[in-house]
């Protein structure tokens, strides 16, 4: 059964998330090819990881005075509306037929440790094409200073058979 267009405009959130320094560093380690552990693994940072993302001393001397998150660390908090939408019982999506089809982010300000993100989202499009449903959710995340940090456009593709 195709997804009903009546859900376009449905809102999710707000969701709040406090960015923690070690979580941000672990994310950069995992993406960069190391083990996401600050102490247990003893492996250390991956080769080539930008020092502002993990090296506390280097970050202190950076324009930000502290480490910053990888831009894509945003997925950790900005995914919430999309995650809720695909699991929304009112939409009734069969998750075993869902794949993440497309993704877009616009980054406006870096995430710093202790920043409190507030994310809201809305279903912006639902359509059927080539035997598949497409669900598009847009998210917007602001920090505690009400600065826009990141917007996301999340597209799920759901096989109808």
């Amino acid at each position, binding site marked *: 059964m195709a997804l009903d267009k009546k859900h376009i405009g449905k809102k999710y959130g707000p969701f709040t998330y406090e960015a923690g320094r070690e*979580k941000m560093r*672990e*994310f950069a*380690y*995992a*993406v*960069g*090819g190391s*083990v*996401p552990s600050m102490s247990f693994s003893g492996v250390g940072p991956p080769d*080539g990881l*930008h020092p*502002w*993302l993990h090296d506390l001393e280097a970050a202190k001397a950076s*324009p*930000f005075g502290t480490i*910053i998150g*990888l*831009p*894509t660390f945003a*997925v*950790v908090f900005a*995914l919430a509306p999309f995650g809720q939408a695909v699991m929304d019982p009112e939409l009734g999506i069969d998750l*075993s037929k869902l*794949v*993440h*089809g*497309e*993704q*877009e*982010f*616009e*980054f*406006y300000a*870096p995430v710093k440790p202790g920043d409190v993100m507030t994310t809201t989202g809305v279903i912006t499009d639902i359509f059927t094409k080539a035997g598949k449903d497409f669900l598009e959710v847009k998210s917007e995340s602001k920090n505690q200073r009400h600065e826009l940090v990141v917007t996301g456009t999340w597209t799920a593709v759901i096989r109808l058979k």
Partner: protein
Amino acid sequence: MTKTFAIGDTFTLVRTCDRYRPIYYAAASGDFNPIHIDPEAGQSAGLGGNILQGLCTLSWAVDAWIAYLGDPSKVSKVRVRFSRPVAVDDVVTFTGKVVSLENGIIAAEISATNQRGDDVLKGARVEGRL
């Protein structure tokens, strides 16, 4: 020394999806979908095994862009279509090319192919603020 940027510049990054990468990325991102961390769940979903989270592949493309820009805070935009799953042991080569540079915004197109030459991303484009 200030880095210079020009249309036509290219950059490359190679990343391997080692056996534990989907699990490490799950721990860091919170995406513990069984198709990513459990080979049997991936098998029964018809994927031949567990696959890497698409957003990790997207992050790798952004990493390639950061390495070129030299500053993670300059990344302003990324857009990708996930065209093929990245499986355990796949080696993904990201090749970027700067396509525009105007009004302080630099943009590049990135191809991402596995060791068989198949695209794992399509239409990947990144932008940065200079």
